[in-house]
Each structure stands twice: as C-alpha cells, then as structure tokens.
C-alpha cells in the first residue's frame, strides 16, 4: 500500500468523523477513558519471610497473608513470591516454588489424625489423644518385647531393631534435632532420611 499507516489513520478519522454524524451525542464520553487495572492485591497484606519447602537451594520466599495479625483477623496465606533480598534466589522462584501457594492450600493436605484398623478399607478420624496414646502404646509393646540389651557376645548394644523411623528431610533443624533425640533415645537403629535415597 502506498498510504502509510499514519496517513491511513487520518483518512479513516476524517471518514469516521463525516460518517458518524448520526451517532453524535451517543458515545458515552462519561465512561470513555477510565480503564480498570486490577487492584494490586498485596497492598496491605502481611509479609512473612520464609524459605521454599522444596529443593536445597532453599530460596527465600515472602509469604503474604490476609489480615495484619491483629487479634480479630485470622491469617490466611494468599500469595507466595521470591524474597528479593535473599542472596541465592534474589527474588526468583522456579515452577515449584512459584506454585507453592497450591501446596499450602492443597485439598490433599492432612487436617485430622486418622486411623486405619487392620483389614479395613478406610481411614477413620480419631482424636490426637487417641492417636498419640495408641502410638506410644504400640511402641512400648514392641520395644519391651524386642529390645536387645546385649548381643550374642554379651556386649551391651542397647538397640531396638524391630521398629524403624524414616525421617523427613524438609523438617526444620530444630524439629530434626528433637526427632533425633526422641528416636535415638529409644535405641532405634533403623533411622533414615531422604539423604541416602
């Protein structure tokens, strides 16, 4: 085309002006130039510094939650994004970290202690007290029965082999340390985490 875009627009504009006589007065100048940008949703959300739960880059994350932690506002997490101050990730996140809000609010999060009786095909909700008492009872039964104080050579070994403990690798150090103390004190040797696998 010989006409440039600009010229073309001028021509169009002229034609338009000429042809829109009948429409004058109807073009709603009132709503004309307002355009709604979606409001920035974090404006006054509470920001909490945390670390991504997935890989061992352990990127810094900012967790935004509803409410200002005042007495009558229940915090609920609405957004997660990278912590720009964190020297390693510098605000970036990968596909897992960037979607971790979906982990926090996953419909598959566990909410209540559940109990599956032998031979049944379902979990039933139980109280924490029931669950914890039941577990410690089962532990004690097995430990008292199968604890090995001395090996065949008469050496004190104080070990318990018939119960094992697979620990998480996404626990905090403090949770890990307490787990270590709790488990080792019982004499369990079958004690592992994700590090080896």
């Amino acid at each position: 085309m010989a006409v440039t875009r600009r010229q073309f627009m001028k021509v169009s504009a002229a034609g338009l002006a000429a042809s829109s006589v009948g429409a004058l007065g109807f073009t709603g100048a009132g709503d004309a130039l307002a355009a709604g940008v979606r409001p920035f949703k974090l404006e006054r959300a509470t920001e909490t510094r945390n670390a991504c739960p997935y890989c061992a880059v352990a990127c810094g994350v900012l967790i935004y939650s509803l409410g200002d932690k005042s007495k009558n506002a229940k915090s609920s997490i609405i957004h997660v994004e990278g912590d720009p101050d964190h020297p390693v990730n510098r605000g970036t996140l990968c596909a897992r970290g960037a979607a971790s809000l979906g982990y926090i609010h996953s419909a598959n999060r566990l909410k209540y202690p559940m109990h599956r009786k032998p031979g049944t095909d379902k979990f039933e909700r139980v109280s924490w007290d029931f669950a914890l008492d039941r577990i410690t009872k089962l532990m004690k039964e097995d430990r008292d029965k199968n604890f090995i104080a001395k090996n065949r050579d008469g050496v004190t070994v104080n070990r318990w082999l018939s119960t094992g403990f697979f620990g998480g690798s996404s626990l905090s150090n403090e949770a890990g340390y307490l787990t270590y103390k709790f488990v080792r004190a019982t004499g369990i040797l079958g004690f592992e985490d994700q590090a080896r696998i």
Partner: protein
Amino acid sequence: MTNSWNDIKNTDLVLIMGGNAAEAHPCGFKWVTEAKANNGAKLIVVDPRFTRSAAVADVYAPIRPGTDIAFLSGVMRYLLANNKIHQEYVKAYTNASYIVKEGFAFNDGLFTGFDAGRKAYVDRSSWDYELDDQGMAKVDETLQNPRCAINLLKAHVERYTPEMVERITGTPKAKFLQICEMMATTSVPDRTMTSMYALGWTQHTTGAQNIRSMAMIQLLLGNMGMPGGGVNALRGHSNVQGITDLALLSTSTPGYLVLPTDRETTYADYMKSRAFKPLRPGQTSFWQNYEKFFVSQQKSFFGAAATKDNDWAYDYLPKFDTSYDVLKMVDMMAAGQMNGLFCQGLNIMLASPDKNKVVTGLAKLKWMVVIDPLETETARFWENHGEFNNVDPKSIQTEVIQLPASAYAEEEGSATNSSRVIMWHWKAADGPGESKSDIEIVSELHLRLRALYAKDGGAFPDPIAKLTWNYTRPHNPDPAEVLKEMNGYALEDLPDPADPSKVLLRAGQLLPTFGLMRADGKTAGGIWIYTGVYTEAGNMAMRRDAADPTGLGIHPNWGFSWPANRRVLYNRASADPDGKPWSERKKYVWWNGSRWTGGDVPDYAPTIAPDKAVGPFIMNQEGTARLFARAAMPDGPFPEHYEPMDAYIANPLHPKVSTNPVVRVFAADAKSFGTPDKFPLVATSYRLAEHFHYWTKNVHDNAVLQPELFVEIGERLAKAKGIQNGDWIEVSSQRGAIKAKACVTKRIRPIMVDGKPCDVVGLPIHYGFIGFARKAHPMNILTPSVGDASVNTPEYKAFLVDVKKTTPPAQPAVA
C-alpha cells in the same frame, strides 16, 4: 557443596554431569547463567539425555548411564598424560608424593585384600602409605618413586584411553576430547571449573566413587578451595543438608560423628578409633578434637546423666552391627523382621526402589505411623487403586495411624541449604484443621512414651527417662530454645587456658565457636558444626544482611554457614604454599604477614604462618587431599569403572569382575537383576522441572504443568517398535512393569557402546496414585533394590528395561 550457590558465578567453566541443575535446581542454576553472561564462562553438560540444562549448554555430550567413572578416569588420564595439571598445587596440597605400601595392587578388576567369600575387601591394610619410624607417611617430593600416589594413579587410569572411554560410555571420542581440552584450560592458576552434580552420580552402585573421581580431577586442576571451583552436591530437599548434619541416618550422630559399633565394646575402644593422629609432621588433623564434640553432644542429650564415670552415657547409645539403611529396613520388613514403622515426611512406597518389595514389607508390619502434611501413597498403601495399586485391603493387617503435620509456612525454625547456610524462617499462618508441627508431634510422642516408662517400667528406660527435655514449653518447644541447645553453651565457667585468672565464658553462656568445646563435660552442644549459629550476640540464622563486600558472592552476614560461618571449604588452598593468592583474579583468602585474611572465614587456624607448612585439608590426618583414598572407601582407593548391577555389557576392562565386587546384595534380591538379552534397553530415572518428588502432584498448578507420567525414548527406538508420540507403552524390568505414554524425542539418540547401538529410556519419578496429576503406576516398580557400595544409595540411575506398545491402563472406578 564445598562452595556455595553464589560462588558459582566466579567460575570459568561449569561441568554439569551426574545432575540436571537447570531442572532440579533452577534458582541455583541462575548462578551458572550469571557466570556465562558476566564471566564468559562455558557450560558443559554430560548426560544420557539432552536435558534442559543441555538446552543452554555450550557443549553437550551423551553418556551411557552408569559409566561416569570411565569418563572421568579418561579425563584424569588426559590431564596427566598431557601435563594439564596444576603442578604446584598437586604437589603441595595432595598426597601425590606419598609413597604407597608395596603390597597394594590392582589386578583384573580387584584391589588387593579381596575376600571372595564375604564379597568385601576384608584386608585393607595394603591400602595405605609407607610409614616411617615416627608413624609419618613417607613422601618423595620429586615424584620419581613409582609407588608415589600420583604414579600409581597414572598407571591406574592408563587403561582409560579415549577409545576405551568411547567403548564403555558411548560418548563420541571427539566430544570427549573436546571436553577434556576445555577442562584442561582450568589447570592454570587464574581459571577454575566448578562441578555440579546430584543424584545422577550418587544413585549408582559406584556412587561415592563417581564423586571421588570428580574430586580427584578438581585436585589435579587445582580447583578445590578456589572461588568458582569445588565439587558441589546439589542436594534435594529444602533441609536435607540440615537433616544429614543432624544425622537422621542409621549409623551417625549429629555433626558427622559416628555411632559406636558393637566391636567398640567400651568408650575407650570407641575413642581410640576416632582420634586421628597426624600422618605428617605438624598437621592439624582436626578430628583429634572428636572427643570434645562427642562429650558435649552427650551432655546436650543426657545432661547430668552423662558423667565421666558412666563414660558420658556411652551405653545410652545403640551400637550397630550393620547399617540399617533404607534398603536394609525394606529388606527386613519384607522378611517379616519388623513390626513398627514411622514415616515422617518420607513417602517410602515411592521413594525406595522395587515398589513391590516395599509394599510386601509394609503389609507385614503390625503398625505404621505416617506424619506428613500431605496425603501419600505410603499412608494408603493398603487402599485399592485399580491396576495402579492392586491390593486387597482385607488381607492387609497393618494398623495405620496418619498424623497431620503443618508445613513450612506454618512454623518457624531454621533450615540449612545445600551451601551449608543455616537460615531462619518465620510462621505466616496456622496449619489446616488440627495439624500440628513436627516439633509438637515428636515432643508429645516422647513425653507420652517417657510417662509410660515412668509408670510401668520396661526395657532399658534410662536413655528415654534421662533424655534432656527441659524446655520452657516441653510439649511444644520454642525452636529458638532448641537451636540454642544445638549451638551449645558452657555448663560451668570456662577459664582461659592462657590465663586461668580470666574466664572465657560464664556458665550458661552460649558457645561462640566449637573451639571452646571440651571433653571434660563442662560444655554442652548438640551438633558441633552448628556452634556459632546462636551466640550471646543473638540468632545468627536470622541475619539478613545481604551485603557482599568482596563481590565474590560470600554474603558473610546472611544467615550462618557451618562450619564457623565459612562459605567455601578448604579455602586455604586458594593461596599458594607461601600464602599468596594463586592469582589476582582468583584471590580469596591469603596470609597478610600476620594472619589469614580475605572475604571469607579462612578454613585454617587464623594465625599459623605459611612457613609452618600446615596443609590446607585440615580434616585429613595428612593435611593434604587424597588422590589415593587409603582405606576410606570400601571399594578401592582409586575409582574403577564397574557396570551397573543390571549390566548392559560385560565390563570391557575386566569381564570377570563386571560389576562392583563389594556391593551388598540381599539374598531376596539375588535374582532381581535383569540381563540385556531380556531387557535390551538402558533406563535412567530423573526429575522434572515442574515437579518436586512426590509432593507436587498434590499441587494443582504443578499438575497442570506436567500432568501425566511419560517415558522418553529416542526416535530410532520408537520407529523400531512402531511407537508414536503419545502412544501408551509398557516398560518392563526384571522387577515389574508399568504403563506410560511415550514421549518420542530427538534428544535421546542411540549411542555406540562396545560396538553396538545402545538406546536409552528416560523415566520421570514423580507420579503415583495420589494427587491431582493423572494416576500412574509408581515408576519405582522398575528399579533394582541394590545400593552403592559405600553408602547404599539405590541404583536408580542405571537399569535395564524393555518397551513395547500397549493399551491404556484401566482407570479405577473410584477416583
């Protein structure tokens, strides 16, 4: 990681081999792209598949899974043959010049001392140096003695010619040599290479030796302790480093101390084998301090109950006869030798190899406790999910208790990343429903168990009854209080040894450094390497000063990097023996005439002058790094290529000893290995950028980004089998079979191995029958239950399979 994520930006060459950083650690991989963009660095990727790391690499080379040692030994041969090593560094900082005992030899795939009956190197006495009458290792500074470690190494790797490398690994010779040349460019003092690896190296029967091979290359090139250098393990879980440090491992205690074995019948025996004396004059041999760390730890655990008289409660610790690692426990479960099991955030049903064996084992348990923030396959192993988990709940008598744990966002505490940096995180909201933090759950279990023993007595209750749990809120201790205990504190006033009239630390004060730990019971500290994280100055893990004064990515006031806030390990080696930086460009830590200085905390006693000739590798008895590993590895002082247990070919180097001779194979698994006549394809498992292990199939958006299990196969294989993109195919191994959709790709090309084309099959691990992603057969149905000879990490990365076209799986009636 010996170095840090940020330090990668200082490098000139990145080798990603045995890992796939771009997909598994995208935000850490950022520092590779930074090095490329701002430092002119080149990126080499060696991988069986053309991965997303390879997509941005300067050079990509394919390799047959499980042959990394052949490749790396070939590199060592190239470097030594072409004299592309950092001579002065190798001579001063490694055991290159140490003279190895006459008895040591390597013949037909076996080192000396092999006991064929026990399948172990029972007698490793020859794997050591000639010692002089002082008990010091003999050396030949001229390197002329043929028994010098470096000369033995030369002889050992001589067999790994480029032709042999190509024959074993399938890497085309030209590509291999190109990579050798690129790596060789970093043997000069002002250039470094970094190695980034992950499970691609560890998950082999030769896993530890894979990494050792790389460490040796880095030593030959003079890249250890250097900015932009090192051997960097890119670890998997957010706090797997911390949990490893804390020894949630069968035979360890926190801080890389070791539990006693039942051969160490007394505390004295135990200590005797820990106190590593220097093997060269004047060396630090830092493990000489072992007892200080051990006693402080016992004081932390058992408080007043650990006394000198009861050998610091030595008998409160269980003694091990063998490693009760994951594979061993699964084997015991399957053999009906276990009654109870806890799974705290570990989905063992998918995470352990040979899923069918795992399920058999779980079904034989009397009870299982699952503590997790999410639904897992493990918690529901008894539930029928059609062909994805075809079990009969009625026949499974395992009692299961599932406890809801809160997640990271819902609790505060510290975690240690792959760079060993301990960082604090804060709580943003409560967890859902009645979920509780792991701290609270574990505390409740301990206190209730303790109460039961207090009430009823029972088997050896002492360690439970005496365990320190004197927290302000015992049922839900404050993490800060726990971190203080881990850091350690003085139990009594500590006098200054230089001036007894002065007190270094008052009773109750937090230890600023593990240097103050004592073996006399006057200090407590749960994990010595963390000492300094919480001092009288406050919680160092909370520090958030992102400043980087040197511009080298050290960030010294961000969190706390163990040990002693050191960011690059062995950094004394960044300076020459005279204490001057090897080059201005790679200046990191140096001697300023009176002390060691630089941007980082020196990995060295700060005031020992260079002329004292104390080696930089202070944790070793020699003060130098080991090209020859002595008896530290169960499968040899030098790495050697052995075929994976599912062996694709007979080992061309020594067909009679084709696979690693000292691998532990359980009797139950003896017949579980595949052979190439039935399973002619080499498979490897891997992770995808879109998913994290087995968690994110429970996250909607991640399920959107990779919704369904697929299997990657090359075009040649697809054509031969009549498979189109998106077809359902069956992948089978000696252990079982799965169905998955075919992803036919140009990114896997057949490679020539031992004269014939070898097709590789890629299997992502992330899918199961729980979650929002499409239900799938757990991929670990296929993997062999056998582990690395050193640490028993399962061989997920190299096994044999076959593929064929099939029909879609039947979807279970109930979703």
